[in-house]
């Protein structure tokens, strides 16, 4: 019997995402953090889940999944040995718990007050036990081992006994079914950045800036120079990996640089911003538009061949301006700046050697973990996956997609599902009972007595009309105190509860649980913040008392009118419609079907395989042709996939989780009705046809790169001189985006031809050799391929057709005339012309370039993250665009989007009933008040509302509602309401707060 638990080693975003996905699918995970706190090993996306806090909705997934029992996290962890086989690994782990168990800590800070040791630091005084960092949502208590005397005074005063100064190092043995390696992003060190004088105070990394401005957003003050606090006005932004062979570049690097430069101009228009980069490589959705926007904003772009930074006194506290030394068009220049921002790349993982030894995985030539092509991180060891930045530099969306992908693929090694959230305790029906409000005031294990006269408060509260019971409790956040409080609530006989506690933000679920343990629906309760809203914001004790009283009074008035209702569950349809039988559609269908989901694969044409049928291999030499053939075979042989060839979607009704579609074969006059819970858009795209450009279509010596590839494969090319022109019909007004695949395509053909002895010249604007593809540029150069850069406003011209002569002006201003036997045009990918029709049919948006909208649409990643991290997978209407329908991408990358979509779909599709993400906390409709105006439908960010056309009123799909309240704000008559904030609760609540 195979084990069902998965081990995730490392805390990169892909690892977290895989763990959360597995939990949603029903598998437990053990996550090993090598650091002593959640964010010690930094993630690539700085704004993403900083300290375990999700910006999108305030959820803290890690805490949530730990609380539910799906996730276990070990700190200071190290893997000692791995034995066994896929499905049955035995992993020996060494770990040491955190000093403070975060889940039990009340953050009362008694430990800090008790600590007798004061330590002087760069940022002022602190105790030997302290909180890091100051801006965190979740305070992490750290002990300074150097200064701590182990007097244990802190341990003595800790009210919940969650603190231990000395934690033993333990060795544990874990039985797991599969392993995911998700080690973290490594930033270049000071030494690696020596070329850029990083030790100078006014040379900062972009990530430093991002971390510093996490909570304020990026504002003018973020530009304060570390040396003297002056706001810098002349700023250089350098994409360092392009000038430093110690760093690897992810495609995010240049777009981050562009975005940073743009943002500076936005918040400080008078600033002079100079951007240093050789090639712009942002190919993600909207990236090229940002590039253009930055230039429009007045950012000066210097396409330097080399850049370094010198500082006369490259020391801390230096006040001299750093000087950027750069060569442009063969000339060396110097320019001094008040602030230099380094947009850095990443380094190969430092622990790779050891990991290779322990796990048996291999490092590639760059020192990253090697994974198999066409997979979401399969290594050479069966049952061991490697994902995220651990396997190479890549962008944030891809990292998150790999998390979903790995969670999906790895399931084949696992046993039966081993996790389901425990059912809630039975709740009492209180309808018909007279309202009896109980107020329970938490003393935080006596801590609050130091600030508040709790007895006086109790006395005052007892006089509030309707209050039947007041009691001071010890706590409500550790298992014994939760139990104790629940019993007190029960014993008091009340049917409404006001809990005056410390901080509902992090402990909300515990409080709700406590109320449920007392047999009451949490909708009948209200939680107030005595610490955050009273003790920590006031100094005057009388004021504190007054405010605590007002808050409680408000809570009492609110719960008096509260109504209990159970969580409304919604039914989900179990099938999935996949539109399009290209590589991405096939892969999604295969993954879903192999995991038990019924799939309807609808292909417009007569054959499966799509555009990929034109491909033989990729730049890395991996065999696409045979992979595609086996994929087609796997799909056609799978019983759970029903393939409809020659069919098209003609009708669609419904919403995420419940779709009713009609497909039609027009030729045969057949139509079939289908039901599905999700829809996969895999309708592909097309190659741009450069008709009329450079004599294409007039002579067969001018061809596109894919025509050239085919000709090479068929042995038909014997040209001696070949010229290639990049970005033909791309990155212009009509198509302001980079198709990302054309540069690789050109390199692949150029290397093939050069090996046959041809003389190849590539004319380009930016060579988008992202990630490790830069290697192939070097290989091409070694094989004699020439690269000539031209300016986007001055494309090469065809001056003679016979013989072929191309005139090009280089960016250095030199005019050249090239003769060729063959001219290859690198054309981009254009959206499928059917997209528009389909977008209207599905009511699913297209992006500005005409591809389908997706979670990674927003750019740059600060924005994308907010969408990627939405609380649940159904937030894209249950519609998932994959492959070229999503955006231009290579075969491997198209497969990754398919794996991502399959993973997202698997988190919900197999569940017959879905509760709302916040259980009984959902929005609802008072039918007698609703006029069907549709305002709530328009404003709902989760597509949870629609208009019932028969009754002309709004309806809510409960499992899509995140209870955000946007509908309630939009609705003028309160026909839309939140169950926990009805109008009749809130107006008296406000009234009472003002006492």
């Amino acid at each position, binding site marked *: 019997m195979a084990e069902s638990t998965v081990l995730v080693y490392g805390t990169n975003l892909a690892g977290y995402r895989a763990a959360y996905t597995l939990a949603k699918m029903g598998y437990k995970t053990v996550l090993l953090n090598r650091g002593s706190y959640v964010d010690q090993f930094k993630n690539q996306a700085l704004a993403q889940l900083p300290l375990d806090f999700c910006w999108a909705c305030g959820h803290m997934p890690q805490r949530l999944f730990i609380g539910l029992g799906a996730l276990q996290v070990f700190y200071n962890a190290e893997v000692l040995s791995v034995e066994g086989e896929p499905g049955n690994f035995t992993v020996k782990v060494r770990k040491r718990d955190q000093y403070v168990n975060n889940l039990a800590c009340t953050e009362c800070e008694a430990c800090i007050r008790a600590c007798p040791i004061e330590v002087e630091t760069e940022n002022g005084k602190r105790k030997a036990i302290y909180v890091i960092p100051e801006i965190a949502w979740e305070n992490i208590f750290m002990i300074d081992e150097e200064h701590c005397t182990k007097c244990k005074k802190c341990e003595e005063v800790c009210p919940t006994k969650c603190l231990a100064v000395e934690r033993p190092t333990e060795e544990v043995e874990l039985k797991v079914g599969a392993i995911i390696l998700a080690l973290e992003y490594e930033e270049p060190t000071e030494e690696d950045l020596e070329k850029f004088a990083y030790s100078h105070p006014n040379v900062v990394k972009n990530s430093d800036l991002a971390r510093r401005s996490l909570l304020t957003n990026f*504002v003018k003050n973020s530009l304060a120079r570390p040396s003297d606090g002056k706001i810098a006005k002349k700023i250089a932004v350098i994409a360092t990996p392009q000038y430093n062979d110690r760093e690897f570049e992810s495609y995010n690097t240049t777009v981050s640089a562009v975005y940073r430069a743009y943002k500076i101009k936005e918040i400080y228009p008078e600033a002079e911003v100079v951007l240093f980069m050789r090639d712009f490589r942002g190919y993600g959705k909207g990236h090229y538009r940002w590039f253009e926007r930055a230039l429009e904003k007045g950012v000066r772009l210097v396409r330097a061949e080399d850049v370094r930074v010198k500082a006369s006194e490259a020391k801390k506290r230096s006040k001299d301006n750093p000087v950027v030394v750069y060569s442009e068009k063969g000339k060396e220049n110097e320019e001094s700046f008040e602030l230099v921002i380094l947009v850095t790349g990443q380094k190969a993982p430092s622990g790779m050697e050891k990991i290779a030894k322990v796990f048996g995985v291999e490092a590639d030539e760059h020192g990253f973990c090697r994974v198999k092509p066409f997979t979401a991180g399969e290594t050479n060891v069966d049952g061991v996956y490697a994902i995220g930045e651990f396997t190479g530099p890549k962008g944030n969306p891809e990292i998150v997609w790999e998390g979903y992908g790995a969670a999906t693929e790895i399931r084949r090694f696992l046993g039966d599902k081993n996790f389901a959230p425990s059912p809630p305790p039975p709740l009492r029906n209180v309808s018909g009972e007279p309202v009896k409000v109980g107020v329970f005031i938490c003393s935080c294990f006596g801590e609050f007595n130091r600030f508040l006269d709790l007895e006086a408060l109790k006395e005052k509260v007892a006089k509030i009309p309707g209050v039947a019971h007041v009691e001071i409790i010890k706590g409500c956040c550790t298992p014994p105190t939760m139990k104790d409080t629940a019993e007190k609530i029960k014993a008091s006989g009340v049917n409404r509860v006001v809990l005056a506690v410390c901080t509902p933000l992090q402990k909300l679920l515990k409080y709700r649980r406590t109320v449920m343990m007392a047999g009451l629906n949490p909708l009948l309760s209200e939680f107030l913040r005595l610490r955050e809203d009273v003790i920590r914001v006031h100094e005057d004790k009388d004021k504190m008392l007054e405010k605590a009283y007002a808050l409680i009074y408000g809570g009492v008035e609110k719960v008096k009118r509260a109504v209990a209702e159970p969580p409304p569950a919604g039914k989900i349809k179990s099938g999935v419609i996949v539109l399009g039988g290209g590589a991405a559609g096939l892969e999604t269908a295969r993954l879903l079907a192999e995991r038990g989901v019924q799939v309807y694969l609808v292909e417009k044409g007569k054959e499966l395989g799509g555009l990929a049928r034109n491909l033989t291999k990729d730049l890395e030499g991996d065999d696409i042709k045979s992979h595609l053939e086996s994929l087609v075979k796997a799909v056609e042989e799978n019983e759970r996939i029903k393939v409809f060839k020659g069919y098209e979607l003609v009708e669609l009704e419904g919403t995420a989780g419940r779709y009713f579609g009609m497909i039609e074969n027009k030729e045969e006059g057949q139509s079939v009705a289908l039901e599905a819970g999700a829809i996969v858009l895999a309708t592909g795209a097309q190659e741009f046809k450069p008709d009329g450009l450079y004599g294409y279509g007039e002579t067969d010596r001018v061809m596109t790169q894919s025509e050239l590839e085919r000709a090479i494969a068929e042995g038909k090319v014997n040209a001696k001189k070949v010229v290639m022109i990049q970005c033909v019909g791309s990155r212009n007004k009509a198509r302001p985006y980079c198709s990302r695949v054309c540069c690789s395509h050109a390199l692949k053909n150029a290397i093939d031809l050069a090996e046959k002895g041809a003389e190849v010249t590539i004319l380009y604007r930016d060579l988008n050799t992202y990630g490790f593809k830069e290697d192939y540029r070097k290989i091409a150069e070694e094989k004699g391929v020439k690269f000539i850069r031209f300016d986007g406003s001055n494309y090469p011209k065809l001056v003679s057709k016979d013989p072929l002569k191309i005139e090009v002006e280089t960016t250095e201003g030199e005019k050249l005339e090239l003769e060729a036997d063959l001219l290859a045009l690198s054309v981009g990918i254009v959206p499928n012309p059917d997209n528009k029709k389909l977008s209207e049919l599905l009511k699913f948006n297209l992006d500005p370039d005409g591809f389908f909208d997706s979670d990674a649409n927003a750019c740059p990643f600060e924005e994308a993250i907010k969408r990627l991290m939405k609380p649940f997978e159904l937030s894209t209407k249950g519609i998932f665009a994959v492959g070229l329908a999503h955006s231009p991408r290579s075969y491997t990358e198209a497969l990754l989007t398919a794996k991502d979509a399959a993973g997202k779909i698997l988190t919900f599709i197999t569940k017959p009933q879905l509760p709302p993400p916040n259980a009984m906390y959902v929005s609802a409709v008072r039918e007698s008040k609703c006029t069907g105006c549709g305002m709530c439908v328009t404003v709902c960010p989760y597509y949870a509302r629609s208009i019932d056309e028969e009754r002309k009123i709004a309806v809510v799909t409960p499992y899509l509602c995140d209870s955000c309240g946007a509908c309630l704000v939009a609705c003028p008559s309160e026909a839309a309401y939140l169950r926990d904030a009805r109008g009749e609760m809130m107006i008296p609540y406000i*009234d009472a707060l003002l006492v």
Partner: protein
Amino acid sequence: MALGVIYTGEPEAAIKDFVKLLMKHKDIQGAVIPVKMEREGSYAFVFTKSPEVVDKSSPIAPVMPVQGARVLSKLTKRKPLTKPAVAVLKPCEVRAARELSKINQVCMESFITVSFDCPGVYPTKSFLKNADALEEEFKKGLKGLSVSGVRPLCESCTYFTGEFADFEVQFAGINEVRIIARSQRAEAILKGLGKAEEVEERDKKAIEAVLEARKKAKEALKTEFAEKVSTPEKLLSVLSSCINCHNCRSVCPICFCRECFFDSDSLKTPPHLYLERASRKGGLRFMPDTLLFHLGRMNHMSLSCVSCGTCEDACPNMVPVSRLFALVSERTRAIFDYVPGIDDRPSPFLEYREEELEEYEMPYYEARS
């Protein structure tokens, strides 16, 4: 030049003839048009299929007890009409109807709207006191759009032509009556009737003097009236004779709720909280929710307010409520650069634009400085 029909003679007669003409079209059934109710001495909208009723109608009524948009909403809120009807409306009624259609309260496809140069309407109460004389005066001033004693907001209305209807009727400042198709649908109807002719557009100068006078009145409203409500105390004293009857809301074409929030259980405050309020403030004025009611309404509908003045017309105690709302509406609409009933885009309530949120993204210390 535009497609249209030219009539000679009185504007009202021309409109009636035109409505009867439209009713002959195979795709049109009936008309919604103001008719004088002889016994009551006032005017009401009548929905009719009979050309005889149209003959007796008064397309340009001197009063507006019921805002026409409410009539269209009543007719089509549940379902569209099987075939469209002609609706003769004042410009502000057309705008209100268009605004309501954005929130599914009117089906505009069900109506072929006809609107005209509007001189304004009399306050209903003053009209009823002296109906015959005022009717006479109204007729006299109609062609020159110079009728005195109309609703205060009519005096300052600058959207007084029918250009936002399917058919615009022009007569002010010109000799004949020009009826011009303003939508593709209207053009198709004229062509279908075989009546489409090329009609010259009216020179803007013909109504320039009227526009200038109205603009001047509007400026006066913005300055003089604004002064009267410039502080919370002044506002409260302007509202002091409000009796919380909610008439203003009941007649408002834009207030489309089935049940008003201010009539709901939410505002049924328990006595002990009244006591708390009274002791907090020193004394509690009754009715206690007057200010909240007006502010709430402003919040809900000021972006869509077409400044028709019907609210003030319905007020039993002469609270200048329409001027108050027009003033606020002017300001809130300016934030979004939106004119209700004229802009085709959705109400700013329903439209999200990223740059709108910039002020929220600004840190406190910057927003405050």
